[in-house]
């Protein structure tokens, strides 16, 4: 889309005028589940699955309806939400190829995870409530991708954050879970604040947050404003998608039940950041510096995730850092602009399948191994849980990009596109992406080999690891099929053309790379990674943590000091500010009073008797404030 | 006697004259009187009765209540004066009278409340 072209949304008619049902059905189900209480305990999980399934079926119907339309972007205004002066926001929905794609991912993969959770949460007395939160999560995510203005997206955005908070801290008796939930919520708030400020910038400069108005008006704005908007949106996206520097919450979010991890990491939540940047493509297209920063964040995070992933021994944490790194690929892609937006979304979809499959597989392993998560305590499991082995194996091959599985079709074009950027940037980002592919191959091989092959290194209490029940196996199989087939189907099914109305082009910017050579190189890198890992770990590993020999390993085990970074950058100033404020509120004022009392001839006894909370120091504060206000007014007037 | 502070000059002179007169009277007194103190002369004079106890006596709390009731009603009654100046004018008449009646009635309500709560009984 060139900037001169107008973004236009037709109003919805016919079947699509009921598109709001997509959000309403899971929301209503969540309300029923949460409000009805114990009465719904027996059938709550069925309702939860049914509602998301219904949304999926509806989503398919709308999808095919949209395919048949000439103008592939329909908007639906439901009712006036809030109006202040000339600012007006409607509850409105935008249904276009991008949202349609996300709807299918969220409801489709979401449905499978719901079904899986029926089995996984069977023993949990709060299963009904869990499904209530799950539905809430899904409906918030649907609102996020279906809103027709940044404000609608933001409401979904906050809803997702809230639901994730509830779900991550599900195991309330574990302090780690509580802390993790809190951390997720708070770090998301940092991103949310940036998003809010970006929205207010839109308001201030364009008078609206409607996608149509903003995208049509953004070309006329000064570059500084556009850049600020882009960077703030990026910061918001980083918060939700776990990108540097706000990545630390995402691995901690593993404290929730495994279906939650799968839902957060594959179908919802983390993809929100990618969605936001892809959706705001006119803003990012208008500022090449902003795009470069997105690319840089993506490239840096993908390496960061890989490096930490290599050093972790907890199966879910390895997968979590793998998510961080894969989302980095997506950021890299959407930052490149043009046709690469579609590549990012393509990778997102493919990732949705194989990552959900991997998480469900991990959950299945834990289910069979009495909630053990330590990779060093697995080994040789392929004999005991063949279905899990096969599904995780397919997901593993997909994520490292072995042809013809989906990762190959989605990741390699991103690496190509990064090189195609040209100049030193092309080299830096391209090599980062290539190196990331090799590292991914390494740590995923390590995970797979340590879990399913080699000797048994189980703890003593485990006698018979068992395969999971059918209700858990079925989603895993379906997701494995998706991991295998999604990439090729999407690429040859014209996915990039389907998204063309949103991004305006299918052309990846830059020069055309030598496809065959690129594929050869990246496959070679991947195979080297696999080989090294296989050689190192085929005999298993030591059962205790080895002393870190190099600073890199030590740093990687410390999550590359992500937490330290966050503490220094976000918490420390806050703490200092708080202390300073408390000091001035209490001690400072008292100090002044003490001094004043001494000046006006107070005795030492008077000084000693001063304590906080006195009327006089309050009066002094008020007087001081009064004097400053008068002086300031004078200064403004006379100065 | 004109200029910036002119109109205050009279006031100033009056003050000065007052201070001078006062000072002169006391100075004269001091110069002329004999000065022979003894303990009996230095005790506090209480109408001829021998002084007993300390100089800090606690006042009955009730004095405060009564004094306070008096002050309130007395102060409220200042509104009667401006009213008295205008109520007889043409155009004011009955309305003004009724309004003042309401005002007094509200005051009376307060008094009534005080009475019912037993504030006015002295035992």
């Amino acid at each position, binding site marked *: 889309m060139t900037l001169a072209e107008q973004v236009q949304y037709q109003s919805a008619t016919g079947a699509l005028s009921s598109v709001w049902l997509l959000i309403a059905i899971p929301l209503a189900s969540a309300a029923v589940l949460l409000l009805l209480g114990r009465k719904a305990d027996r059938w709550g999980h069925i309702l939860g699955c049914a509602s998301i399934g219904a949304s999926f079926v509806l989503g398919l119907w709308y999808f095919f309806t949209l395919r048949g339309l000439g103008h592939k972007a329909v908007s639906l205004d439901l009712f*006036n*939400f*809030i*109006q*202040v*002066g*000339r*600012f007006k926001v409607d509850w409105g929905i935008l249904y276009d190829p991008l949202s349609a794609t996300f709807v299918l991912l969220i409801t489709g993969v979401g449905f499978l995870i719901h079904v899986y959770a029926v089995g996984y949460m069977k023993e949990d007395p709060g299963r009904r409530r869990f499904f209530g939160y799950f539905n809430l999560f899904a409906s918030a995510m649907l609102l996020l991708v279906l809103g027709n203005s940044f*404000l609608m997206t933001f*409401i979904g955005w*906050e*809803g997702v954050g*809230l639901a994730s908070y509830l779900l991550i*801290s599900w195991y*309330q008796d574990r302090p780690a879970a*509580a802390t993790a*939930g*809190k951390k997720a919520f*708070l770090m998301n*708030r940092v991103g949310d*604040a940036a998003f*809010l*400020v970006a929205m*207010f910038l839109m*308001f*201030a400069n364009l008078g609206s947050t409607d996608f149509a108005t903003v995208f049509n008006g953004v070309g006329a704005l000064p570059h500084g404003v556009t850049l600020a908007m882009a960077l703030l949106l990026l910061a918001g996206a980083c918060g939700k998608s776990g990108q540097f520097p706000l990545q630390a919450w995402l691995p901690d979010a593993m404290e929730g039940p495994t279906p939650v991890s799968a839902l957060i990491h594959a179908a919802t939540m983390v993809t929100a950041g990618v969605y936001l940047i892809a959706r705001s493509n006119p803003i990012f297209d208008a500022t090449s510096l902003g795009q470069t920063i997105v690319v840089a964040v993506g490239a840096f995070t993908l390496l960061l995730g890989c490096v930490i992933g290599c050093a972790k021994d907890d199966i879910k944490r390895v997968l979590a850092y793998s998510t961080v790194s894969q989302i980095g690929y997506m950021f890299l892609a959407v930052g490149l602009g043009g046709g690469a937006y579609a590549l990012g979304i393509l990778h997102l979809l493919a990732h949705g399948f194989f990552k959900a499959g991997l998480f469900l597989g991990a959950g299945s392993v834990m289910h069979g191994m009495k909630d053990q998560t330590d990779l060093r305590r697995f080994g040789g499991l392929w004999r005991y849980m063949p279905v899990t082995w096969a599904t995780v194996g397919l997901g593993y091959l997909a994520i490292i990009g072995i042809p013809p599985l989906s990762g190959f079709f989605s990741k390699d074009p991103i690496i190509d596109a990064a090189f195609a950027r040209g100049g030193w940037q092309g080299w830096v980002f391209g090599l980062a992406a290539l190196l990331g592919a090799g590292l991914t191959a390494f740590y995923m091989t390590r995970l797979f080999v340590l879990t399913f092959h080699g000797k048994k290194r189980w703890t003593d209490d485990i006698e018979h690891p068992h395969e999971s029940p059918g209700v858990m196996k079925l989603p895993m199989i379906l997701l494995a099929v998706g991991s295998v087939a999604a990439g090729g189907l999407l690429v040859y099914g014209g996915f990039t053309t389907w998204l063309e109305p949103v991004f305006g082009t299918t052309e990846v910017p830059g020069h055309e790379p030598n496809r065959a050579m690129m594929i050869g190189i990246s496959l070679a890198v991947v195979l080297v990674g696999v080989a090294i890992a296989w050689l190192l770990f085929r005999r298993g590993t030591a059962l205790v943590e080895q002393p870190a020999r190099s600073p890199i390993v030590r740093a990687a085990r410390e999550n590359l000091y992500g937490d330290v970074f966050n503490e220094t950058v976000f918490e420390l100033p*806050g703490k200092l500010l*708080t202390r300073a*404020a408390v000091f001035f*509120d209490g001690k400072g*004022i008292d100090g002044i009073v003490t001094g004043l009392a001494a000046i006006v001839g107070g005795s030492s006894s008077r000084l000693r008797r001063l304590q906080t*909370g006195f*009327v006089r120091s*309050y*009066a002094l*504060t*008020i007087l*001081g*404030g*009064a004097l*400053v*206000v*008068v002086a*300031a*007014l*004078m200064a*403004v*007037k006379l100065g | 006697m004109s200029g910036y502070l002119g109109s205050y000059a009279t006031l100033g002179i009056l003050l000065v004259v007052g201070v001078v007169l006062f000072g002169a009277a006391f100075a004269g007194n001091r110069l002329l009187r004999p000065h022979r103190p003894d303990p009996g002369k230095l005790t506090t004079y209480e109408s001829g009765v021998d002084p007993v106890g300390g100089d800090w006596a606690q006042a009955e709390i009730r004095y405060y209540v009564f004094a306070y009731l008096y002050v309130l009603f007395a102060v409220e009654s200042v509104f009667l004066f401006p009213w008295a*100046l205008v109520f007889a*004018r043409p*155009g004011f008449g009955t*309305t*003004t009278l009724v309004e003042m009646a309401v005002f007094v009635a*509200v005051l009376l*309500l*307060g008094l*009534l*409340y005080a009475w*019912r*709560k037993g504030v006015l009984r002295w035992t």
Partner: protein
Amino acid sequence: MNPVLAADITLPHINYGAIAPILILLGMACVGVLAEAFLPRTLRYPVQVLVSLVAQVAGLATIIGLALSNYAKKPTLTAGDALAVDGPGLFLQGAVLVLGIVATLLIAERSVERGGAFVAQAAVTAGSEADAEQARRQPSQTEIFPLSLFALGGMMLFVSANDLLTMFVALEVFSLPLYLMCALARRRRLLSQEAAVKYFLLGAFSSAFFVYGIAMLYGFAGSVKFHDIAVAAISSGKSDLLMFIGLAMLAIGLLFKAAAVPFHVWTPDVYQGAPTPVTALMASCTKVAAFGGILRIFYVAFLDSRWDWRPVIGVIAVLTMVIGAILAVTQTDIKRLLAYSSIANAGYVLTGVLAMQKDGISSSLFYLVTYGFTVLAAFGLVTLVRDQDGEATHLSRWAGLGRKAPVLAGVFTFLMLSFAGIPLTSGFTGKFAVFSAALGGGQTTLVIFGVLSSVLLAFPYLRVVVLMYLQEPAADAPTVAVPGALTSAALAIGAIVTLLLGVWPSVLLDVANSAAQFVG
């Protein structure tokens, strides 16, 4: 006869219909005093509750009638231009009464604490044998009802006062009962009376500043009517010095009541010490009244000089938002936490006020109502968490409440989310409204600070939620009282309105929009 007096003093015409709501409230308060004086003890409570609620409902009905019969569109001045009956005035009066009714429900509750939250005989020395006796046995005194009616009437007078003197009288009329109400707690009477002493002394101190400002402005403009001040401000040839000192002094008196930094110092102590239903009344109704006065003064009397004072008040707004939020983080007492949060919220309203546009008025009005309902419900919930010696307000005592009382914890979490500005609660729509109005008025800096402080403010709220859900309750954890019908009603109203205005804010925003025109 005095020649000056002979000048044209005419009998001011009083449109009794237009000021009927105020008269109803104050008249019924007098009825309440009579009932207190003459009814036997057992009858007083039901009669007082009835009188109180009837007065407020009747007042509200009258206000709605006035609003429907075109007073909002065709505003009038009455009583010698001393009172303005216009859109914002009626809206604010209505807001005071609506919030007042809910607060009255909390005040009238007698089943949570046996006999009610107020002391039976204020004159009995705290801690004595007789005091313990009355705390156990005797029902609350009922003077609280006429006192609250006087306070509410004063607030209504305050928001529709059209000259500074009327405003000062109204300020005292609503402040004096509040000082007394602060001192009436049944438990922790020492704390309560301290709060009253502090509130009184500082309130009197600040109202002295207020009236000093009035005198300055009178000297400047030769009149205390807002309109005359506005005219004098644009006429050249007068020294602005008096006007700006006067404005500053006025602002101090008003910002004190609104609890803006640095005039907020009393708030935490008083909110903590006062009986919780009274705190709820102060946090909701007093805030509405204070900002009603601020709106009218800024938008009617000082509109044309806004370029000079807006930066100064803007700095106060920033300080209020930031310091309120930061200090809220460090609090360990739920009532103090809510107090600091109410300080920060005053900053948000101030941000809306400073838009100095029509949106500024409507969004501030909207925010005041949304905040009022949420804070009423929050304080209502605080009354339910109890120890042997009254409310357990220390945060550590709230640990694990989510398990003991899931409904209470759920509602409280919802209210906290609203305070934190999460969408689909009125906290979000309110903040959204004031911030976008401020942006429209060019106050970008304020908005950025506002957003940042609201993010910061989410921390303490979240801490409470975490405490309630994620920590083990202590062995001697406080009990959660079963709310009586009145408290339940108040809680339900507060929570439902918080949700309703979060999902469908245009119900109220439209009303606020159509009301947002001051009469000059």
